[in-house]
């Protein structure tokens, strides 16, 4: 049986058992996640991305379905950190799994404010920080290292293993693979850029995980195109400490449990 992932900050610890999570953005804040699946099949619930201040949806929010997956562009709408905590704290207490709050920050100062605020919330077991700007890796990694609660730094996979190794050298305690960005242009010249999800990503995710499994000494959470239990078991065998699931959760989640 697969080992649980134990994330620790030295002061607080969370056990993610089984080592399966959802990708941020796929189960909301847990409001209706239980209507899609048995949440006990996951070792933790990663929330939708939350920013310090409220964000509105993108005016051109859209989705493009391609042959091997889809692009999603939402603008990462959310009510801001304080309102998110107030609105969902009680619900999270009733859920049967640990809560990992996904944070998006524009600067190290913003991240600092958010982590300090979240550290006061006992219901949040860990934090995942989305790193979009690779220039922020070292600053975000340094902040993650000092946090009282466990932190996962989520990095985009497009640049290969180097950013992950850089984050480890900078002191990141744990890492996760984010979805790549992609673009599409339709026949009218309208373009869409967003995050890409789908089964066509799996070979790239496995390849990267195999490299990271040989080179990283800190835990990393793999993600990308997992469609079956065979897929996530292979990622764990490659060295990932846990796996995040995305598009199958909106389809037939039972096909992934195995």
């Amino acid at each position, binding site marked *: 049986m697969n080992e649980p992932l134990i994330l620790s900050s030295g002061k607080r610890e969370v056990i993610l058992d089984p080592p399966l999570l959802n990708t941020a*953005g796929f*189960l909301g804040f847990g409001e209706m996640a239980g209507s899609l699946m048995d949440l006990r099949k996951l070792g933790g619930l990663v929330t939708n991305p939350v920013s310090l201040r409220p964000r509105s*949806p993108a005016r051109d929010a859209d989705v493009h379905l391609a042959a091997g997956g889809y692009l999603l562009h939402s603008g990462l709408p959310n009510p801001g950190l304080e309102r998110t905590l107030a609105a969902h704290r009680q619900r999270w207490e009733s859920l049967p799994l640990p809560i990992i709050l996904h944070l998006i920050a524009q600067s190290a100062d913003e991240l600092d404010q958010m982590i300090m605020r979240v550290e006061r919330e006992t219901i949040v077991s860990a934090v995942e920080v989305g790193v979009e700007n690779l220039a922020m890796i070292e600053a975000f990694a340094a902040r993650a290292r000092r946090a009282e609660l466990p932190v996962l730094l989520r990095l985009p996979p497009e640049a290969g293993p180097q950013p992950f190794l850089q984050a480890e050298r900078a002191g990141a305690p744990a890492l996760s693979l984010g979805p790549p960005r992609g673009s599409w242009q339709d026949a009218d010249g309208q373009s869409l850029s967003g995050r890409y999800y789908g089964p066509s990503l799996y070979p790239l995710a496995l390849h990267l995980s195999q490299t990271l499994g040989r080179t990283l000494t800190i835990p990393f959470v793999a993600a990308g195109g997992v469609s079956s239990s065979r897929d996530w078991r292979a990622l764990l065998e490659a060295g990932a400490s846990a796996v995040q699931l995305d*598009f199958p959760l909106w389809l037939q989640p039972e096909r992934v449990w195995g």
Partner: protein
Amino acid sequence: MRRSQGKVESTGIDGEGKTTVHVRCSPELRPDPGQALLLLHSSRPSSMRHTVHPNKIRRGGFRMRAPDNGHWQPGDTVDLLGPIGRPFRPPERARRWLLVAFGAPVSPLLPLIDIALANGADVTLASSSRPAGLPSDVEVLRSPGEALPWADYLAACVPRKAVGELLLQLGGAGPSQLRGRSEIMVLSTLPCGIGACGICAVPTSDGWSLSCQMGPVYPLSQLRE
């Protein structure tokens, strides 16, 4: 919201040469007019469920236009999630229904016609063409303008990106006799159906609203550009 299997009972071809599919499903999955279903063909892998708005709703199930170009045949099973969202709620005493397909297919409005005629109401449809098989009682106009003063209930469907244009055409809240009696169905793809992805967000008087949760049918007065 529930998830269950449905079965294809029969298929056909509509007036535009598109495949139509009749699905039998359990009563709790049968949508009301305006609600969506998220559908997966059990034998055809897909990364995302299809967002479906039936064009006919019956006791045992519904009819829809085939959501993909694959082959559909009786006996096929479909995995259904829904019904999603808030349906149309026509006022009980409305007797002059104006249905408007604004840059959108007519099909999501067709179930309302069955209800209107069953209730003895007169129906006018504003659409670019007359759908095949439409009851002869239903008058079809190219533009809703001339029928607005006549109507005592307005139901429209519009793609999300055209909401602003529709609001402009209706002059904001519309004629005074339609205030509080106008509903707009905002069409968009619903990737998740659980309010997680944010793709279906619509601006309203209360801030932005997720169409899969609080829509897709909104009172006209709530919509903003």
